[in-house]
């Protein structure tokens, strides 16, 4: 029963992850697991000194835990489910040493929790590092999703000859776009490490490290259904060995905070003396509810959190943040708030239609680890897609309608004339103009040559030009964060209007192609030995491009 619910929850988590793409309907909260996680919301609120609406969902989980105990860990948590399911597969034959005195280890998760809360209080959002839901979503995005798609394509390639022969054209022509991400390796290594720790003890992660478990365990002893052990208990120790959480004590007692209500002990008990009745009174004999973290331990971890929090913030990156170098997703909060609110779940990058959103390593400083940036040379930001904000559980990227999102300018294209085929080599190239959805690139006559220019007020930084520029290597037209609009609240359309920006295509300007009189163009293929710096030949054509007299 429990395993079935657990499997169902994992399936739901995985399904919602799969559904997080540009077609996601507005009513479907694909990020619901992340929203339900009170730790992520708390971290964002504390670090960002801001209110996050979606964090209210976290209260639901906290309240449920206070009512019914720490069932989340054993029934709902997808990471817990994965660890539970992998355990018999990986470690069935392993004889695990009993960790005799694991008090220090058990306290570790509280250290982690206090550490992160302290860091958040000084303005560094670090919970994402070890929050299970964020960590798992991130692992799905960067480490599991891409190889999964690759595998599916491989299978399709294998069956393709058959499908072609049988004229199953839907299958014969099927192939999925392969997502690719930076930082896949490091993400999978962290995840693999968590799984590998299970070698030492079942649910090692949940017992000793998980800060969300630690947070929930602070309220779970209030829950109504708690483990009770009858007086007939001979203290045989079977339940102690069976409990994946180490919640059963020697004398037949219970560490109620550690108990995740999986009821493994009930099944294991040879005497049938363990039960989970509804217990009205707060705590009964033999129950330990408080984490026995010493005051010193508390202070040390708080100090550690404050320390690391400061280290993360006090780097040249922090003062540089308002001169941010990175192109952030459209609708991203102002950089400082963005960094503190973003929980690095990777959901935006998973759902990104073009795969332009990529995780940062050090580019945004230590505080920017895993935050999304647009790699516009790799792929552009699609005009009609607004999914990244829709799936952001803390609204570090605001959820915007397509029209609003279009006006959430992420940067401005800048022409690097020294690299541009037209400016530097007098070639006939107008790919950037052709691809620009907003007609933000226009050709003007300069000294008798036709030259491309960027009309900054029409460019919202989508990056099609940067992506498609045929210059090898770096693009000759790059989107810089110049003029990006990052609003905490309010309308982007109104802001753009105020700034006299116009992101609606204006069909008029292509007329300029007509005005060719006196225009010079370079030879299509310069003859060998010709001086590339010499002025190009006068024009042969007196017509718009593509036409002859």
């Amino acid at each position, binding site marked *: 029963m429990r395993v079935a619910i657990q499997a169902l929850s994992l399936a739901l988590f995985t399904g919602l992850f799969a559904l997080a793409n*540009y*077609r996601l309907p507005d009513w479907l909260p694909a990020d619901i697991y992340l929203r339900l996680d009170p730790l992520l919301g708390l971290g964002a609120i504390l670090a960002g000194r801001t209110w996050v609406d979606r964090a209210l969902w976290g209260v639901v989980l906290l309240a449920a835990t206070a009512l019914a105990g720490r069932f989340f860990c054993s029934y709902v948590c997808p990471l817990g489910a994965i660890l539970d399911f992998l355990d018999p597969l990986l470690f069935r034959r392993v004889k695990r040493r009993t960790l005799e005195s694991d008090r220090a280890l058990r306290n570790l998760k509280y250290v982690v929790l206090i550490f992160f809360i302290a860091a958040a209080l000084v303005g560094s959002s670090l919970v994402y590092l070890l929050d299970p839901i964020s960590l798992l979503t991130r692992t799905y995005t960067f480490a599991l999703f891409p190889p999964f798609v690759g595998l599916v394509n491989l299978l399709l*390639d294998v069956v393709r000859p058959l499908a072609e022969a049988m*004229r199953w*054209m*839907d299958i014969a*022509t099927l*192939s999925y*776009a392969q997502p690719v991400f930076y930082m896949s390796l490091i993400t999978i290594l962290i995840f693999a490490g968590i799984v590998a720790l299970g070698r030492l003890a079942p649910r090692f992660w949940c017992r000793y490290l998980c800060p969300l478990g630690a947070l929930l365990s602070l309220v779970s002893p209030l829950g109504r259904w708690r483990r009770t052990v009858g007086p007939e208990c001979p203290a045989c120790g079977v339940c102690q060995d069976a409990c994946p959480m180490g919640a059963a004590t020697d004398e037949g007692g219970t560490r109620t905070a550690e108990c995740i209500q999986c009821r493994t002990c009930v099944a294991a008990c040879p005497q049938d003396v363990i039960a989970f009745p509804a217990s009205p009174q707060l705590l009964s004999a033999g129950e330990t509810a408080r984490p026995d973290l010493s005051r010193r331990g508390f202070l040390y971890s708080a100090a550690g959190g404050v320390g690391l929090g400061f280290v993360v913030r006090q780097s040249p990156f922090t003062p540089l943040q308002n001169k941010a170098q990175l192109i952030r997703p459209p609708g991203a909060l102002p950089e400082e708030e963005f960094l503190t609110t973003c929980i690095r779940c990777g959901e935006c990058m998973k759902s990104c*239609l*073009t795969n332009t959103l990529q995780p940062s390593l050090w580019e945004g400083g230590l505080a920017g680890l895993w935050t999304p940036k647009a790699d516009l040379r790799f792929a552009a930001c*699609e*005009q*009609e*897609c607004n999914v990244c904000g829709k799936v952001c559980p803390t609204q570090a990227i605001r959820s915007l309608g397509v029209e609003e999102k279009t006006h959430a300018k992420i940067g401005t294209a800048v022409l690097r004339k020294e690299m541009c*085929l037209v400016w530097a080599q007098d070639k*006939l*190239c*107008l*790919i950037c*103009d*052709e*691809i620009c*959805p907003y*007609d933000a690139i226009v050709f003007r006559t300069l000294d008798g040559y036709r030259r491309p220019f960027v009309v900054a007020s029409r460019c919202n930084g989508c990056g099609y030009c940067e992506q*498609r520029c*045929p210059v090898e290597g770096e693009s000759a037209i790059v989107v810089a964060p110049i003029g990006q609009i990052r609003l905490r609240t309010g309308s982007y359309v109104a802001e753009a209007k105020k700034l006299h920006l116009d992101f609606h*295509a204006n*069909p*008029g300007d*292509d*007329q300029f*192609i*007509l005005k060719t009189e006196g225009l010079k163009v370079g030879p*299509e293929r310069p003859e060998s030995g010709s001086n590339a710096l010499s002025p190009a030949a006068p024009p042969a054509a007196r*017509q*718009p*491009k*593509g*036409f*002859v*007299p």
Partner: protein
Amino acid sequence: MTDSTGITRRDLIYGAAAGLAVSLPGLPRPAGAAEPDLVAITGEPGAAARKAVEALGGMSRFVRKGNRVVLKPNMSFASGPDRASNTHPALVFTVAQMCLEAGAEQVMVVDNPLQSPELCLRRAGVADACKGLKNVYVQMFTDRKFYREVKVPQGKVLDRVEVIKEVLDSDVLICLPQAKSHSNTGVSMGIKGLMGVIWDRWSFHTKYNINQALADLATVLRPKLTVLDATRALTTGGPGGPGEVVKPNLVIAGSDPVAVDSLGVSVAPWYGQQFKGRQVEHLLAASQRGLGKIDVEQLTILRAAA
């Protein structure tokens, strides 16, 4: 893929190639070819396309029973029909339907899009329009594994090119271009639309003279039929738009891809100017390679309303 029907006419033009602009009046038409060279039908995209193909002698002239047909509309931009950068879905639907009626075993509607394939499929409306048709598949090919290299023996600038396998392996290629301006080639119609079935289109822009490369490409990709959607024409801002859209309200069809494009050039002003097909460099190059007739004044054109 190289087509053998109608070779007589093409052979004749071949003789007239190398810049010979003179027409060849009085030469005998192939027996049984009582159909007009070109038809231009006024009306809604679907109805006009049907009438146009019927006026050419019906789809059975181009598609035989059991044939595998490839339709190549423009659907490589994520925009709806009103922007006129993609072929009208109703036209694609009608032609696909007519192919099935003529006994086609399979109709594959293909393109290699310039924007996200999913979005293009959704916004261009072709996938939705063809949903109800059995054995009709609308597919974007964005993976190189679906392409195969072929030689271009008659190429002047292009000696080999990677083409969608399905196009190479099919029996019939039918082009369903949208009439639109093009910032690089002047106009984009049937011949230019062939660039939608090759893998490396950027080399056309950066490596080769695009007009010559297009003519080269047209020597290996020979559509049996071209149905040009000029119900709307994007006269500036092409190929993607947005730009000025005029409504010639016409569907032009014919078996000669150069002639169809050439007539298409004359039905709307491009960038505010009136041009003839002969003034479009890539069409001129194609006609000089003997791929079709460019001077439509010398062709029989049937004009009617749907």
